[in-house]
């Protein structure tokens, strides 16, 4: 049972503020992923929880107890880094057993604990080897084993699979997830890889320039991004963004982008919702993911004529660039749906998948149609 709470954390490196008023409550057994670019403060946050970094303001609570003044070793938290940091002169067995040396466990109990964790991580047959004789994935398994063997209150992981090649990364990611489900320990995991975050997390915490941008489940973060940064950080290809101006004619709202003559039809409710949100043309951005741009080969009600440009055939589907005025919108279509560049097709923006942002602040206006 481990809950972790961060209250009003501030952290400076010299004059540079790397964490700004961070608040976060992590539930028992939760798998939290801190997601962001390098320099966003995610690793500093993790290190502060572990006790490897002091904080300048705020409280870190573990099970309700403030720990910010406690030494790292007294917080009972395990940490796994990207570099494996194993003892090269010790065997795998000795490496895993090492954290138990200082405890008063009997030799038999230590042996049982090491063998149990090795079994879970499928490294039982490697116990007698030295780290130098292991592959990258196995080294990281050992590092995870060493972190887990003393049953810490929480497990902190800093890009633990970032140094592995793509295939192994996928394999290890699945293992980490499965291990978490089996062992059920509160986990905080840092990465810059959005697919990793989306696949592992119960909740994702997105950070940018030391500021928490959004906390939510993977589907929330994907479907209801709080601002333009989150919208473009999560999902690939990135969400289309276009300056938009909205008008109303004949009981229909019309969203114009890229100075195109025609506009995309939207339900009339949009204009009311926009004025409620105090949005103004000139400070309005339309965001839509490629799967929210619908393409037709024939003229259809509500679809506007556009010209196809570059087509990326990805096998299972295509990503098609559509010229809308002087703007490109990328659409996801079935494989081979649009024949080639220059083809005239028809497009519409699915109102249910459209996002509207305040251009100046980047904040989502929270309009859902």
């Amino acid at each position, binding site marked *: 049972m481990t809950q972790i709470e961060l209250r009003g954390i501030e952290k400076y490196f010299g004059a540079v503020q790397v964490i700004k008023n961070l608040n976060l409550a992590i539930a028992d057994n939760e798998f939290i992923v801190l997601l962001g670019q390098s320099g966003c403060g995610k690793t500093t946050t993790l290190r502060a929880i572990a006790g490897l970094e002091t904080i300048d303001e705020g409280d870190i609570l573990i099970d309700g107890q403030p720990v910010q003044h406690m030494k790292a070793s007294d917080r009972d938290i395990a940490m796994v880094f990207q570099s494996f940091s194993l003892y090269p002169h010790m065997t795998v067995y000795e490496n895993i057993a090492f954290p138990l040396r200082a405890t008063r466990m009997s030799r038999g109990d230590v042996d049982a604990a090491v063998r149990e964790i090795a079994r879970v991580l499928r490294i039982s047959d490697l116990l007698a080897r030295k780290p130098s004789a292991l592959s990258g994935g196995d080294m990281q398994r050992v590092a995870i084993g060493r972190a887990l063997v003393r049953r810490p209150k929480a497990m902190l992981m800093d890009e633990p699979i970032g140094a592995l090649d793509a295939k192994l990364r996928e394999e290890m990611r*699945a293992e980490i997830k499965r291990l978490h*489900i089996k062992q059920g320990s509160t986990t905080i995991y840092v990465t810059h890889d959005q697919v990793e975050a*989306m696949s592992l997390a119960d909740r994702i915490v997105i950070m940018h320039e030391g500021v928490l941008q959004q906390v939510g489940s993977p*589907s929330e973060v994907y479907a209801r991004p709080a601002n333009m940064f989150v919208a473009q950080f999560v*999902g690939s290809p990135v969400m289309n963004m276009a300056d938009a101006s909205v008008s109303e004619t004949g009981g229909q709202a019309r969203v114009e982008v890229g100075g195109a003559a025609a506009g995309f039809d939207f339900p009339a409710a949009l204009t009311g919702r926009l004025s409620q949100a105090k949005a103004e043309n000139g400070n309005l951005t339309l965001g839509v993911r490629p799967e929210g741009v619908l393409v037709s080969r024939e003229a259809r009600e509500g679809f506007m004529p556009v010209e196809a*440009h570059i087509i*990326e*055939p*990805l*096998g299972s589907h295509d990503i098609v660039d559509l010229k809308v005025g002087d703007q490109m919108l990328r659409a996801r279509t079935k494989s081979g749906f649009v024949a080639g560049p220059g083809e005239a097709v028809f497009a519409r923006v699915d109102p249910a998948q459209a996002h509207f942002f305040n251009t100046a602040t980047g904040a989502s206006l929270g309009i859902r149609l």
Partner: protein
Amino acid sequence: MAHIELKGITKTFGSHAALKNLDLEIADGEFFVLLGQTGAGKTTTLRLIAGLEKPTAGKILIDGEDVADWGAAERDVALVLQQYSLYPRYTVRENLEFPLKSRIRRVEPAEIAERVARVARTLRIEHLLDRKTDRLSGGEMQRVSIGRAIVRKPRVFLMDEPLSALDAKLREALRTELKNLQMNLGATFLFVTHDQIEAMSMGDKIGVLNDGQLVQTGTPQEIYRNPVNTFVARAVGSPPMNLIAGTLAGGEAVATEGYRLPFASGHAVAADGRPLTFGIRPEDLFLDGGAPGEARVHDVENHGVEKIVTLRTGGETLLQATVPAQTDLAIEEAVRFSWNPEKVVLFDGGSGVSLRHAG
């Protein structure tokens, strides 16, 4: 503008054959991508065309002329590498001017200025022209490298993993830019990469290299839909094609692990009983409560727009299926699956060669 042909190229380094009897043709104005793992011979091919290496055997023709005796400069090719070999103490403008200032070329100053301006506009680096190159981001540096290649209007562009060092978002953006550029220039591009997404999304044609040999050449769609063997099947597509060992019996596919899946008799070959490998793309494998295959959910990768489920079947075989984003699945949940029988590709169980290609 150039047409390139490689005929029976072999290149050995000591006792190691980097390329084995390679035949390759790149049409004028084509975006050709060589796809392969490290050590497959991609970079060697590029260096041979550039004139930086000499073939052990075989001929290289540019526009029909044998270029064996031509030096690198005479071949008039531009090379863009993963590391941006820019002059750090020069401004972007000076870097772009440099290839034109060589005494052999004798380009008039007015024309130099004109060409630099045009390239800067094309690559959207006009605002960077007076900046030193060490003050640029990775993406900007790679744009300048490409600009330096374009500015002298070479006959061929050779690109060696130019996007590999960039982060994912930037790579995605530059992919489109590069393709756009090639279309506007109408130039011949030979682009080398290990990244199948780059190959699929940019190439007019893809050549798949394995261990010094060209395994298959074709459009991205051809390679994706009709791979010549199991190697190519796994080399393109993300996630790659699922391969299931089994046999055909009584109009059904029988997996070695025991489960049976429907098979379209339409393109059945006289293959009953013979050891086969069934190839099926993740998007053609689906979950359905009444389906014949049984599996457990091993992992779920969430891409937002869809999910990729890894299934563990009876043995320890892992299969991947693309499912809609709304599908809720728990790890270790028992599920049932089947495939779209129309989309199954048959490979010989021993050689791995596609039965369609074997004839």
